[in-house]
């Protein structure tokens, strides 16, 4: 066991855990942040996407030692009150069906919008290609990202 220090959702955190443990399991089982989902365990589906220093990262293949000293944000930390434009748009469009992949989808969408305030359909397709949805909500996801971009722009 080793102690890994990091910041999770804005809070300084210490993890006493094998540093080879995937970040996903540290978040879910040590910190109780179960919004981040296990999908494939091989970085292929995007359900486990979180932010590490602002980048979308697959937590299922990221060892805890790789995030020492870094800032990790999970779906629970995207905003304190569901006010992030992506969360508002997701609610307004009613994107989820079963909902399992949606935390990962929203985390990737938030990174896209941080880099591109007005993404085209092609930009969205490129950015979201790594997040799979078995329910096939892709059309609603795309629509919600356009709306989130609009909400973010109008808030400025």
């Amino acid at each position, binding site marked *: 066991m080793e102690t890994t220090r990091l910041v999770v959702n804005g809070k300084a955190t210490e993890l006493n855990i094998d540093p080879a443990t995937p970040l996903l399991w540290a978040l879910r089982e040590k910190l109780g942040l179960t919004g981040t989902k296990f999908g494939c365990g*091989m*970085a292929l589906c995007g359900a486990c996407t979180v932010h590490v220093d602002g980048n979308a990262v697959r937590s299922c*293949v990221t*060892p805890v030692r*790789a995030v020492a000293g870094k800032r990790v944000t999970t779906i629970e930390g995207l905003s304190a009150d569901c006010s992030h434009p992506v969360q508002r748009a997701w609610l307004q469009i009613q994107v989820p069906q079963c909902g399992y992949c949606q935390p990962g989808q929203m985390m990737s969408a938030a*990174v896209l919008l941080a880099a591109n305030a007005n993404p085209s359909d092609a930009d969205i397709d*490129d*950015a979201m290609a*790594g997040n799979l949805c078995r329910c096939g909500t892709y059309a609603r996801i795309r629509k919600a990202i356009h709306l989130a971009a609009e909400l973010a722009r109008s808030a400025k």
Partner: protein
Amino acid sequence: MISPYERRFLICGWASLFALLAGSAPLSPRISARAQENTANKKDKSLQAFRAVASVLTSPRCLNCHIPGDAPLHGDDGKPHKELNIKRGPDGRGTPAMRCTNCHQSENAATPHAPPGAPNWQLPPPSMRMAWQGLSTGDLCRTLKDPAKNGNMTLAQLYQHLDEHPLVLWAWNPGPGRSVPPLSHEQFMSKVKEWMDTGAACAE
């Protein structure tokens, strides 16, 4: 005034010099032929060394990312990394929310078929693609030597890059289920050195 003795001596001296020059004249072509032979041997040695170097550079571990297009390849069979619509992006590190390092960490994932990793996983940027795919051995050699195509590196810098860069070294530690290049890194570097020491010749 020059005495008859001195005149004789001068005449003899000049005669000896002419004789010496005349005698040595047939040596020149022999020296030149040997020099040519040495140069040809050196070039052959250089070309042979580069063939060994090329056997590594054209292995899937190198060729999967040294591509002319925008979608990297993966696996030993060089499948396009298109299942996730992976793209090179403006800096070679992917597109927003689909950066290479989203999945490729600074170390290999232990699970077979999960993403391999090394620090700063990326493709060459679009402004300097360093594309080797489909090149003949001669063209690969010229591309590797050309600073306009190799990332502005001199041969000395290229040697250092091949010797030390983490993404190069990863080829010999690619994680489960991936082949390694046909030479060890030590053998590879010895062939790179031999190629450079013998003039870094490229096949026509």
